[in-house]
């Protein structure tokens, strides 16, 4: 087989795989509906406000409920010392732009 034919076949196969991830994603979204519904039901029933992603500190477990001094609660210069801080940003309200409503100020 010519190299060009082998390469173009390989490229075509990769393109097919790329298209198939979209199809797979769509199918999986359908399957996930019951799981998402179960979580939505639990959020409504228990009046939950946050995802349970990082449980090491209260301001990483419940970032939406954290107080406005959150990144400085260990000492005045401390921003955030848990590894999860490398994944999530400081809550908007702490920054200069102030993501919280003016009600909080």
């Amino acid at each position: 087989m010519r190299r060009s034919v082998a390469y173009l076949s390989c490229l075509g196969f990769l393109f097919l795989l790329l298209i198939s991830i979209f199809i797979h994603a769509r199918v999986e979204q359908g399957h996930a509906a019951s799981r998402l519904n179960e979580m939505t039901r639990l959020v409504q029933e228990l009046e939950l406000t946050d995802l349970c992603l990082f449980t090491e500190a209260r301001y990483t477990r419940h970032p939406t409920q954290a107080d406005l001094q959150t990144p400085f609660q260990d000492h005045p210069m401390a921003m955030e010392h848990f590894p999860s801080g490398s994944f999530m940003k400081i809550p908007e309200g702490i920054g200069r732009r102030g993501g919280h409503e003016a009600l909080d100020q």
Partner: protein
Amino acid sequence: MKRWINKQKNIIDFTLSSLLRRKGKNTALFIVYTVLVFLLSSVMFYTHALKKEASIILQSTPDIVVQRTVAGRHDLIPTRYAEEIRKIRGVNDAVPRLWGYYYDPQSRANFTLMVRESHPLAAGDISIGSGISRTLKVFQGDMMTFRTFDGDLLTLQVADILPAESELVSSDLILMSEEDFRFLTGMARDSATDVVVRVRNPKEFKTVAAKIVTMLPDSRPILKDEILRTYDSVFDWRSGMVVLVIFIAVLAFIIFSWDKASGLSAEERMEIGILKAVGWETADVINMKVWEGTAISLTSFLSGVILAYIHVFSTAAPLFAPVLKGWSILYPSFRLTPFINPFQIATLFFLTVVPYTVATIVPSWRAATIDPDLIMRS
């Protein structure tokens, strides 16, 4: 048309032979390129899916949560605040919520304690999240002992385990009766953690919140919209890990492109010179270089994106696990729903493939326009 296709096939044949002559260098380039695209795509897929899932799940979160702050910190709220809030026009209901944290010194894990208002549990019974059950090996019917605020021991029975499907929101939860919660935490009968407010008209959330602050100046209302926005912003492309990966990837692509754009190796210049001398047109040389750039960048791009998809959505992103688990003992075991869109793929394409291909063509075009005799002599 057939002639054009045959010509392209011949050029591709030649390009692949040329790439195979520098097998070691090009294989290394392909691997590094694929790893970079893989990392960038993994972070993009992961954060996007997490944000999307949060936006769906948290649609049913409370309309307004009212906290009380003392000296800038969240404090317990008197239950009479709920009665005051109920009087505000537009408020459907205001219910005190009882929840808090419990640190278990033996397992060194943090639990979230909560009282279930609807279908209250009987005193002495608890429902626990799957994460607790899995980590502490505690199952339905087992007993769990807690140390109360005044040092007494409180033993409660696990009545049931919350569905594993809901682990993303319930992994560390311990649901208990109000009686047990107050006995464990020492929270007075007239206090609660915060108040959940239900508002009739969503357009009035802000107005109601403003009225609450006026009526109760030490309170801090958190709107549903703020809760949703928090997850949208903490995992956006500017967040810690994402910005770091993007920075590294961009830096690597600058190095790649700089290496390519700063000139061709003597061997590559000689090759172009010979091709021109044997009758190749400048357009043919550029065509060959386009295929060369494509062979490396497009193949790496497609491989990187597909591998990232498998990593994030089929194997639950094991490479990110150490960061996600962090210092926490309890962490949810969940597989994200693959929410991807063509826009993400297009962004990745323009970020990775286009700069490399352009950087490959420009110096080749420069070399291809010089007299072949001059190239071969230099």
